[in-house]
């Protein structure tokens, strides 16, 4: 039994405990919550936030921040929709072009930040405005629909009873987790976030690496934008505004430190699960909109406090023995 306990306890970080407590609470209060179909529903709703939060995780690991992801997602979906509708471009090609646009936005963020040494808030905030403006201009502030809906399988499709986005998110998660843990570039990311000067002195090309990570964050926002397009089958520039703060919240609540060098995509996955479960649960229980906002705010604070000072006294006892 002790061995089992010792294997499980390191998993029970604060946010995981909070998520499980929430699941239990919501299951008691609403009968539809604790069901496989609702689980599938939560996964679908959380998949877009997960993808964009993975990109944000990498930037925050560098002790940076990317405020542009919300607008860049919107730009991707609008570019792709317009290409398919007006340009009669094949959906796959249009999607690739959309993702490329997002990656370029990320690249610009990275270059302005790392080569000109500007605090990352500034270029990504400026990019937020430009990407939003560009998306609005492309779509003339209209909603674009009526394009071929072959992308929809990405979100609505099912395979072995599990939603398609689950496979996409799981594949991306494992790839990124492996990248961070087991590749030189992954370790370099932690090194730059932990001690940039030391990373540079170890021969890591810091500026190049940072630029690549911001471009990667743009790239992930692009993929999230495509999945968003598949989900709503309509493209509107302002629909994805808000994902920048939601993704930062998911990353930080999950346990990745804003100071950089600590955390990872696994923690972010938990953060995303927590936020998605919270929002779905409040709807299932039928809490009125106004109070829902209050509970989301309280939930975020509780999740963060639980991560930084772990809840279970038993856990703390174990950690004290180890230190």
């Amino acid at each position: 039994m002790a061995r089992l306990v010792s294997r499980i306890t390191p998993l029970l970080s604060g946010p995981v405990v909070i998520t499980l407590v929430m699941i239990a609470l919501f299951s008691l209060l609403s009968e539809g919550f604790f069901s496989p179909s609702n689980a599938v529903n939560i996964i679908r709703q959380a998949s877009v936030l997960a993808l964009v939060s993975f990109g944000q995780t990498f930037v925050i690991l560098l002790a940076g921040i990317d405020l542009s992801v919300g607008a860049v997602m919107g730009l991707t979906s609008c570019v792709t929709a317009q290409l398919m509708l007006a340009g009669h471009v094949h959906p796959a090609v249009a999607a690739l072009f959309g993702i490329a646009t997002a990656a370029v936005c990320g690249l610009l963020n990275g270059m302005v930040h790392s080569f000109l040494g500007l605090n990352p808030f500034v270029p990504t905030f400026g990019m937020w405005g430009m990407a939003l403006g560009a998306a609005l201009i492309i779509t003339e502030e209209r909603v674009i629909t009526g394009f071929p809906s072959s992308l929809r399988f990405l979100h609505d499709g099912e395979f072995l009873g599990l939603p398609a986005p689950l496979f996409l998110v799981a594949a991306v998660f494992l790839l990124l987790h492996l990248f961070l843990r087991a590749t030189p570039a992954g370790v370099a990311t932690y090194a730059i976030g932990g001690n940039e000067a030391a990373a540079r002195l170890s021969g890591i090309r810091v500026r190049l690496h940072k630029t690549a990570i911001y471009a990667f964050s743009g790239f992930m926002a692009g993929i999230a934008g495509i999945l968003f397009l598949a989900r709503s089958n309509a493209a509107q520039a302002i629909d994805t505004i808000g994902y920048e703060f939601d993704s930062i919240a998911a990353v930080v609540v999950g346990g990745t430190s804003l100071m950089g060098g600590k955390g990872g995509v696994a923690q972010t996955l938990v953060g995303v699960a927590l936020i998605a479960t919270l929002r779905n649960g409040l709807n299932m229980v039928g809490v009125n909109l106004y109070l829902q906002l209050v509970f989301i705010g309280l939930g975020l604070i509780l999740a963060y406090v639980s991560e930084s000072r772990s809840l279970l006294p038993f856990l703390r006892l174990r950690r004290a023995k180890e230190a």
Partner: protein
Amino acid sequence: MKRCVWLGCLALVAVAALSGAALAAKAPGDVHVALVVKDLTNRFFVEMKWGGEAAGKQHGIKVTVLAPEKYAVDNQIRIMEDLIQKKVDAIVIVPIDGAGIVSGIERANKARIPVFNLNTLATGGEVIGFAGIDHVQLGRIQGQWAVDKLKGKGNVVILEGTTGASSAIERQQGVTEVLKKAPGVKVLASTTAKYNRQQAMKVMEDLLTRFPEIDMVLCANDAMALGAKEAIKDARRTMGVVGIDAIPETLEAIQKGEVAGTVDSNGFDQGFVAVDLTAKYLLKDQKPPKDTLVGSGMATVITKENALAFEKSKTEKFKKFGIKVD
């Protein structure tokens, strides 16, 4: 660091492999209808909520009214997905965007949950019926009244709703249709203020600067009309201001002469009719008509003359359903 990979998988698997709770049998009085509106910070939708709840009380069914956290159609889709999981008996949806909401309706169709489309026409998905006012007609009423008031001659400025929103497009279509038939009336500018009071005040300030003489301001909703009239009052200019929705604050402004008139868009009636038809469909299996026009009866603009009469009839209606009006 190994623990993190376990951590991620645990969260995914736990959520995916939950076992189903037993489905409670549905008692007739236990019918639950959800009304999803665009946002609950605008008085028009608050009255629609009251209408829906009133109809619910009449049929003895449970009605919950939900609105998205953010004015984005994706949030409405998320609410519909959650309602599907909650196994509500029917969803009445007022889409922020008729095209954007289609994938939400299709999901409800797949779950065999009937959907009633209200106020803004959805461009796809099966709905058991549509009720709403004829936005184009509202635009025409407003436009015609303005032309008559200006005796066919004068400068007009139009404040449109959120660009791309179906209701904004249709109301704009109605207004411009009428104004085109009056050569003497010149449309100086037609720009959006996103159905928002603060935005309307700012845009109006700039329009007052741009055009020294404006005779009439046509606003696609009352919130914008109230914002515009403040800017006009501050700039010590005089011109007619016409809105749509006939919310109480506008009626007060009409009596004070700050706003020339408004058009009733029957928020309460829309809510009531939609829930009423849905309840009848669920309880008495009466298929609602494909297209129900709500309350286009009051086909005239409410002005100083008939404002009091209109307000009295409205409060009586509310009282009938036991709704306390502040």
